């Protein structure tokens, strides 16, 4: 498979379309259709708060972690893309299979190395505020403790400030489940679910034949988010918390260590483990039920120039509060994170050296230049603030907004020759894969 290239010499040992390049390299961003991310405040007709925006940008920032992770460009977003999971994540030596990762391995924090390859799935964070306790083994009662542990103990970051943890907690708690028209209030199936799903719903609530006090529903309580907030030993090598079934169609691989790929395998496992004696038809009905409960209306969202501009604008809006508040830490973190986002954004407009893309070279180069100009203007804000000149930072900041307004039409014009176009994207990555094959 692939190797984790740390440092500036991030090589490109890509061997398959299924593989994932080291974090921070180009193919790692190979998601034109991204997991949909919805925030509770916006769903309720409100807006993104300062804390949410700050948390969102910190979530994408390697600056809050340390050691090898920071050097490799790893952030929370690497494992939880758009607050969801990352089924393609694979780091040799730390992953037992795609979609898993050992958070107590030797690379990212040698102090936490337990000498065992015990890779787990980074779970989707949709609905996380309803899913305490945290971590697969449920050892953290609060999300706050979990976040702090991930930064300091899993990824060797410095002790985060209170405002950093506040923001990350606010962001994660805002990530909503995706709407699912097949699920009615109170965790019941809606009428539009299939007949098989409705039959599965009955089976799901039916007592086990050898233990009438138990059913699937006794742990996955169908009262809203299908959990019981407890840990159980179901024969998978320890005590692990009950995962939610909401939107779970998009959460594979399943179980704490990602050992199973499909609902069919999951149902088969429990059939054997609890000796349920299910017929083939009953197993199929249970799968149909899980598929209905785990569905979502729009699980992915196409990424576009406008979507990138909107996200970056949301991140930058943090400075509207941080500069007047003379909050040097947040200004520095914001400029670093947004600068990184802008650089990645700019790489979507291939330069002349990319021979897989034809046409629109002048437009692409103008777009790249515009993005680089934005990076430097924002850096000017950070430099002023770092020198204690917050008035200077306040004076420089409107220049950034003005430049964005001027750059936006050029960026949108260049979109048709950029990696936001599916055909151009495929040609670009096909060429990279070919290069990688030659390099082997």
């Amino acid at each position: 498979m692939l190797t984790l290239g740390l440092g500036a010499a991030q090589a490109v040992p890509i061997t398959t379309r299924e593989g994932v390049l080291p974090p921070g390299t180009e193919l790692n961003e190979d998601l034109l259709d991204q997991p949909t991310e919805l925030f509770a405040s916006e769903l309720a007709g409100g807006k993104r708060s300062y804390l949410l925006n700050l948390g969102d940008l910190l979530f994408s920032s390697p600056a809050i972690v340390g050691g090898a992770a920071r050097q490799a460009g790893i952030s929370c977003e690497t494992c939880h893309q758009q607050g969801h999971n990352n089924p393609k994540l694979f780091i040799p030596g730390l992953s037992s299979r795609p979609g898993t990762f050992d958070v107590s391995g030797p690379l990212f924090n040698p102090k936490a190395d337990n000498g065992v390859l015990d890779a787990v799935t980074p779970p989707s964070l949709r609905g996380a505020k309803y899913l305490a306790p945290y971590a697969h083994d449920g050892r953290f009662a609060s999300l706050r403790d979990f976040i702090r542990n991930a930064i300091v103990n899993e990824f060797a970051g410095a002790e985060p400030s209170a405002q950093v943890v506040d923001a990350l907690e606010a962001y994660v708690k805002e990530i909503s489940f995706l709407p699912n028209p097949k699920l009615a209030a109170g965790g019941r199936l809606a009428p539009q679910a299939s007949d098989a799903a409705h039959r599965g719903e009955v089976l799901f609530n039916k007592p086990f034949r050898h233990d009438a006090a138990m059913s699937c529903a006794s742990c996955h309580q169908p009262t809203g988010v299908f959990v019981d907030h407890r840990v159980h030993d179901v024969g998978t090598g320890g005590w692990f918390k009950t995962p939610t079934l909401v939107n779970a169609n998009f959460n594979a691989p399943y179980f704490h260590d990602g050992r199973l790929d499909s609902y069919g395998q999951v149902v088969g496992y429990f059939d054997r483990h609890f000796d349920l004696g299910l017929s083939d038809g009953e197993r199929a009905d249970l799968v149909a039920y899980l598929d209905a409960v785990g569905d979502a209306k729009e699980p992915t969202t196409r990424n576009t120039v406008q979507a990138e501009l909107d996200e970056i604008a949301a991140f930058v809006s943090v400075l509207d509060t941080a500069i007047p508040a003379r909050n040097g830490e947040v200004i520095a973190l914001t400029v670093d994170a947004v600068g990184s986002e802008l650089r990645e954004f700019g790489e979507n407009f291939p330069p002349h050296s990319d021979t897989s893309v034809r046409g629109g070279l002048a437009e692409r180069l103008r777009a790249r230049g515009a993005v680089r100009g934005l990076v430097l203007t924002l850096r000017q804000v950070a430099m002023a603030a770092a020198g204690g000149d917050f008035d200077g930072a306040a004076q420089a900041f409107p220049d950034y907004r003005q430049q964005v307004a001027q750059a936006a039409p050029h960026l949108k014009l260049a979109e048709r020759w950029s990696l936001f176009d599916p055909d151009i994207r495929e040609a670009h990555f096909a060429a990279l894969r070919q290069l990688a094959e030659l390099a082997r």
Partner: protein
Amino acid sequence: MKARDPKPAAAIVDKIEDVETLVKAKDLKSVDQAALKKAGEELAVLLQSAAPKLKLKKPAVGE
């Protein structure tokens, strides 16, 4: 630049030294990429700010 305005001139020299220190790592893997990007951007900003003082056009970034 030293003759026109010694303070920004000194800042530019200091920043060039910062960049030199960062790239003097024992190998490429040891280079602190985040620090190097930041220092490079800061140097570019300083040079952009200095240009008008030398009656030069502010350089644009691009290819």
